[in-house]
């Protein structure tokens, strides 16, 4: 009886151990032989390897100095610290990649959208005092009441001081002839051809693949977009110097597609010009 009892215990122990081993094995198999998990794993390895190659190509110095881990997960948990470092570098040195919709650490950046740089005229409240002066002036064609209120506050001018504005612009205002007025209207109209300037919060965002071609293209377009706003400063100075003359010229351009004959308009009486502007006269 004791023998039988002993062998039963032994059998039971062996069985228990074998059972545990089997469970361990099954657990291993369920992890390592899960085709879907393996597929996801290989996809993530390829994705990260592509990011590393891109990192080395775009930022070779930073790459050689980097101590970021290839294994530890970074802020965006689907990527290693090293890949996260690339995202930060693109954000700092190329264009605002992380500013807008990437607060979620679970986000994937295989495809990404960019945030608009231009003013959202469809739904945002417009703070005229924060706009470039010329941009605010150009809004007389789109939001006349608010724009004239602002211009009246700034320069004591009103719509009645100027010719009537036609409901739609002359077709030639869209010609890309390098004129500042055309540039301003295209900017306001969100029809520059630059994705940073033409997108707004109310339309479906375009999605970009995270690759070298896209990053280089978007970097260039981002610089162009900043330059497009910078260019308005020139127009701002002329409006500031002679608001009546410049607003008349702008309305003329809208109504008839006519550009002022001289680039540096002769100031009307009482116009204030700075030294630089006087030199051009």
């Amino acid at each position, binding site marked *: 009886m004791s023998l039988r009892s002993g062998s039963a215990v032994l059998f039971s122990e062996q069985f228990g151990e074998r059972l545990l081993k089997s469970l361990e094995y099954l657990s291993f198999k369920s992890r*390592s032989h899960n*085709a879907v998990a*393996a597929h996801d*794993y*290989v996809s993530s390895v390829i994705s990260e*390897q592509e990011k590393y190659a891109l990192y080395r190509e775009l930022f070779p110095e930073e790459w050689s100095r980097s101590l970021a881990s290839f294994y530890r997960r970074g802020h965006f948990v689907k990527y290693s610290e090293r890949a996260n470092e690339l995202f930060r570098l693109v954000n700092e040195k190329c264009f605002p990649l992380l500013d807008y919709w990437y607060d979620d650490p679970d986000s994937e950046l295989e495809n990404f959208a960019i945030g608009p740089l231009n003013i959202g005229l469809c739904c945002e409240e417009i703070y005229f005092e924060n706009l470039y002066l010329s941009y605010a002036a150009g809004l007389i064609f789109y939001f006349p009441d608010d724009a004239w209120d602002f211009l009246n506050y700034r320069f004591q001018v009103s719509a009645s001081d100027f010719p009537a504005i036609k409901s739609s612009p002359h077709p030639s205002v869209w010609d890309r002839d390098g004129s500042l007025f055309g540039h301003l209207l295209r900017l306001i109209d969100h029809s520059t051809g630059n994705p940073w300037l033409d997108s707004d919060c109310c339309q479906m965002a375009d999605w970009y693949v995270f690759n070298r071609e896209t990053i280089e293209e978007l970097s260039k377009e981002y610089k162009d977009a900043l330059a497009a706003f910078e260019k308005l400063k020139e127009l701002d100075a002329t409006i500031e110097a002679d608001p009546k003359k410049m607003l008349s010229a702008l309305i003329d351009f809208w109504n008839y597609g006519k550009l002022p004959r001289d680039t540096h308009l002769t100031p009307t009486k009482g116009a204030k010009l700075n030294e630089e502007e006087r030199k051009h006269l």
Partner: protein
Amino acid sequence: MSGESPLMILADETEQINPAILLAEALMRRDAADLLSAEDIDRAEKTLQVGRMEIETIERQLSVFVRSPASPSLNIPTGF
């Protein structure tokens, strides 16, 4: 239709390990700091495609198998 039961059709299928599993194991063993070449990535993407097709095929087979009508077994399990 061959008249074979769904189980027989499944049993006659060639068995193989999904290539994504083999590749995952190989990738898991390598050092992430050793960058893959463009050719390696290209090969891996092709393997992924084959792996994905196999997963889809199996999912389709499973779905058909689940929908197939029940049939009595020839073997009666002990205890019944």
